[in-house]
């Protein structure tokens, strides 16, 4: 998958702005960015549902949107906005897509049964989709995109708005797809999701990639290992900030206090034996994001 110097505008809004992105086959790739960064638009460019104003988009070695039908046959899409067919049952929802994907008649029952199993809705096969809970709908939406064992799986915010338990179930689904060897591209707001699932992430900001790499390396290169969060704005915080400044460490305001990035260097630099009060935590991709863009992720 390769996007080269892609531009996509909606009137005055430039949703995708000279984006370059190459994703090798077989990896799980995450697009991380705040609202309106252009993640969904990028995903739609990959299915030919959006057409670039400039630049080239190539997916599975085919050029888009000219060869989009072949690409769509070999990819599975899970959209950000739920588009299950509420007039159909769970099994019929899968049945329509089994036919659209051209799964041979003889293989259809098995494919649908596997989809039901994947969505863990085998006992709800004849329930009208309208009557499913939010989590069930998401699971069905994902199973629908995986029905034909696609080579490329495109997931746009697959777990948004779900409780942690359902989210973990969905991570399990995505993990299973990866084990089958498919390439996965997902967008997310959830740092933990990106860190757990993705081999590589790209941080997207205002329609362009500001950094990419494996989550670990990206964090270490940009932020360091550890972050110290100091709550409130008392004298101890001011002392910590001063120490951070002397050590040349970046800091940021977090709403409830101040965070010192790369704080593992702080103790040494401070060297006064007093240490710094606050909560230490592992640095995350969110810290990377804020450092690079100066904006919060969500």
């Amino acid at each position, binding site marked *: 998958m390769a996007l080269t110097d892609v531009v*996509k505008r909606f009137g005055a809004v430039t949703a995708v702005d000279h984006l370059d992105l190459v994703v090798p086959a077989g990896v*799980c790739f995450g697009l991380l960015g705040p609202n309106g960064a252009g993640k969904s638009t990028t995903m739609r460019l990959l299915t030919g549902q959006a057409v670039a104003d400039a630049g080239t988009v190539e997916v599975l070695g085919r050029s888009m949107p000219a060869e989009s039908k072949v690409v769509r046959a070999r990819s599975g899409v899970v959209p950000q906005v739920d588009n299950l067919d509420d007039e159909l049952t769970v099994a019929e929802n899968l049945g329509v897509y089994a036919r659209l994907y051209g799964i041979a008649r003889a293989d259809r029952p098995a494919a649908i049964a596997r989809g039901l*199993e994947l969505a863990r809705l085998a006992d709800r096969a004849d329930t009208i989709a309208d009557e499913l809970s939010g989590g069930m709908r998401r699971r069905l939406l994902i199973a629908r995109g995986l029905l034909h*064992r696609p080579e490329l799986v495109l997931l746009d915010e697959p777990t948004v708005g779900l409780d942690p338990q359902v989210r973990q*179930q969905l991570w399990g689904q995505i993990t299973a797809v990866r084990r*089958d060897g498919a390439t996965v591209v997902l967008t997310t707001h959830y740092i933990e999701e990106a860190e757990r699932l993705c081999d590589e992430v790209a941080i997207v900001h205002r329609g362009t990639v500001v950094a990419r790499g494996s989550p670990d390396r990206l964090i270490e290169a940009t932020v360091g290992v550890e972050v110290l969060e100091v709550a409130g704005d008392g004298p101890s915080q001011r002392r910590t900030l001063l120490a951070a400044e002397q050590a040349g460490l970046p800091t940021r305001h977090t709403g409830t206090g101040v965070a010192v990035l790369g704080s593992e260097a702080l103790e040494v630099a401070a060297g006064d034996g007093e240490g710094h009060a606050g909560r230490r935590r592992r640095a995350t991709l969110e810290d990377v994001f804020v450092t690079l863009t100066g904006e919060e992720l969500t």
Partner: protein
Amino acid sequence: MTTARLSDGPDPPAPAEGFEPGPATAAPSRFAVRAVLAVLWREWAVFRRVWFSTAFGSILEPVTYFIAFGFGFGALVAEVAGLSYLDFIATGAVAIGVLFSSIFPALINGYFRRKEQRLYDGVLAAPLSIPELVTGEALWNALRASVVACATVLVAIGFGVRPDPTVLLVPVITVVAGFAFAAAGAAFGAVMRSTHSFDMIIVGVIVPMYVVAGTFFPIDGLPPALAALAVANPLYHVVELLRAVTFGAPTGAVLGLHAAVVIVFGVVAWGVAVRLLRRAVID
């Protein structure tokens, strides 16, 4: 095959060697009948649950016309354009049945599936093209409209209408006409920005279309401007075709002309619907 569903381990698995192919899938061709059939199957899956209310409505509607116009109006008017008034409105009712049961669902579904339910976003991410989608939906509406037309013919016979054997050609006409009107409905559905547009389309397009078409009264008596409008109205040509096959000797040349108008209208409506839907769903 792996369906581990509850793994939440922190480490993603190492990617497998190569890709294991899924179930046998047919390579997508430019315009695939298979894809059109998938669209039809979706409609059928819904219809088999709701067929009763559809059937009920499609019988009741012509019954209403026959009672209201046949007995009410027919008592005053003996003969219209060489037909008994009952025969005249019987063919009018078939035409209206075809129009309503194709253009309305096409318009309403076209809007809601695109804008509210986002079904088109879903199916167009699968290997379905816009021409296949438009064709499948219009074909379904055409088939259903033809079933309604046949039901109307049967109701008419129950009210004493005695058609010629060529009435068996009615479904041929109604499939083509239903497809054309459904395509037109889909074109309007593709440009609607909100539900407010329904009124405008119904009052501005559909009502004039079914009134000024020789359905309930002949167009001969109309002022020239309105008569010209009727001739430009595809439903008028559908009505003429229906009358020709239902009552007596259809003559080749005239029939060919009416049929040509309906077919050209259908082809143009289909092309416009494809273009407008593409503009509406592809960013």
